[in-house]
């Protein structure tokens, strides 16, 4: 019960849960995907699955940037950082992600100059502070992070800082959703849309999902009440046979997105013809590279990148879990060979990965009912 008093509007959560039960009162089975890893984490942490009726199934989507990064890209980045003149800078999230020869943190322990930064602008600062070295910033993330990398590159160019480059692994969410919808085993009916990606891209880029695919999508916040309200909005649409884009997270997400952020991205980035997603294979126009004007700050143009390709272990069924065909615990490796401490598959790596979230929180169900179950 320790969380109960801390939730915003517990009485409203209770009412919303009741409304969900009423709306889902039929025999119908509802399959919804939460696209964003932050939502996946929140759903498990808050025990939201416990208060949803059994005929509402939440499928965990690909919106965890660490999880979808192919191991070969990590190997590529670390291979470049073997050069003693190079400082390898990356977000803390990346540090434990395994490459074939170990994670960035393990490479650091072996003497590689690996630095954690919390902002791309601090990677640029490292370059300013170490003019005799070259700083490679290992950039990851969806549209939430890409504008910050873009602005940092604009600053590097404006200041003429040439000992800095970006190894760009930024990906975009829409093509991944397109790939999921196009998969032959796709059985999804609706989407809980990402919250903070949408502060940048707005809601319009989702319109094709409603219009062409006839699937409802609701952009959602991260609080328990936000997610439950989004489920209500989706159920109302599904029951009425409608398919619209709706914005539950209006207090943060403008319908048109963030124009400054989109402008910075357009200035710096171009779409790659295709990019490999871990567990999902190559997806066309799903990732960003630096434009010609920024070639001097592009790690892939400044250095010879080995282009390492690593096949995921066959037994790991990350792709099936990502597409919602399998539950995390249905994978053959789950909880045995593959754990958050020693991840084999991509989805076990980050707290936003569905396997790690499932592993960390699902066992609580067995020991005690969640706080939300009590108030709902």
């Amino acid at each position, binding site marked *: 019960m320790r969380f109960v008093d*801390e939730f915003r509007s517990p009485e409203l959560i209770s009412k919303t849960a009741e409304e969900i039960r009423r709306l889902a009162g039929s025999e119908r089975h509802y399959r919804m995907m939460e696209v964003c890893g932050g939502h996946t984490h929140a759903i498990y942490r808050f025990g939201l699955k416990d208060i949803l009726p059994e005929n509402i199934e939440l499928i965990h989507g690909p919106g965890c940037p*660490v999880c979808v990064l192919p191991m070969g890209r990590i190997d590529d980045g670390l291979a470049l950082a073997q050069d003693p003149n190079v400082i390898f800078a990356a977000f803390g999230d990346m540090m434990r992600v395994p490459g074939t020869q170990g994670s960035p943190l393990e490479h650091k322990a072996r003497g590689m100059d690996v630095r954690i930064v919390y*902002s791309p602008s*601090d990677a640029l600062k490292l370059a300013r502070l170490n003019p005799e070295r070259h700083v490679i910033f290992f950039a990851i993330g969806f549209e939430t992070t890409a504008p*910050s990398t873009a602005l940092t590159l604009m*600053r590097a160019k404006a200041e003429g800082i040439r000992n800095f480059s970006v190894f760009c692994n930024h990906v975009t969410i829409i093509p991944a959703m397109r790939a999921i919808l196009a998969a032959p085993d796709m059985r999804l009916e609706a989407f809980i849309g990402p919250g903070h990606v949408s502060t940048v891209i707005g809601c319009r880029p989702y319109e094709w999902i409603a219009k062409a695919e006839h699937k409802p999508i609701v952009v959602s916040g991260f609080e328990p009440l936000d997610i439950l309200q989004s489920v209500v909005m989706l159920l109302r649409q599904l029951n009425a046979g409608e398919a619209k884009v709706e914005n539950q997270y209006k207090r943060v997400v403008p319908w048109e997105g963030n124009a400054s952020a989109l402008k910075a991205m357009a200035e710096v980035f171009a779409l790659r013809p295709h990019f490999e997603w871990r567990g999902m294979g190559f997806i066309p126009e799903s990732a960003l590279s630096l434009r010609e004007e920024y070639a001097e700050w592009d790690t892939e143009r400044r250095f010879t990148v080995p282009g390492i390709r690593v096949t995921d272990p066959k037994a790991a069924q990350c792709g099936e879990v990502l597409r919602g065909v399998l539950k995390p615990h249905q994978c053959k490796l789950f909880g045995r060979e593959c754990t958050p401490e020693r991840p084999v598959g991509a989805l076990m790596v980050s707290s*936003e990965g569905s396997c790690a979230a499932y592993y960390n929180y699902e066992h609580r169900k067995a020991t005690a009912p969640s706080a939300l179950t009590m108030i709902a």
Partner: protein
Amino acid sequence: MCLAIPGKIIEVSSLISDPSGHGSSWSPSSGLVEVAGVRRRIDLGLLEDDKPVPGDWVLIHVGFAMSKISEQDAADQMNTLRMLGEIDGAMQEVEGYGLEDVN
């Protein structure tokens, strides 16, 4: 990485002074924010169309303000981070901005 950190704008300026002695670097827009008592400089360049002023609350992602929010939403977001068990990670991130406590 999807979670954002709420902060209050304390000061807005266009110059990031570099304490290392390597001179100052000009940034079109930066600001001092306070997150749970910790003050750090962040980049406001992604809010050029809707510039925040001191006293405004913003959501911060990787050292950049991404959107303006209300004070109540900021408090709710802080609470969400706490409930998600992400508050320590969030504060570690904020404290690390500007390479203050790392490297």
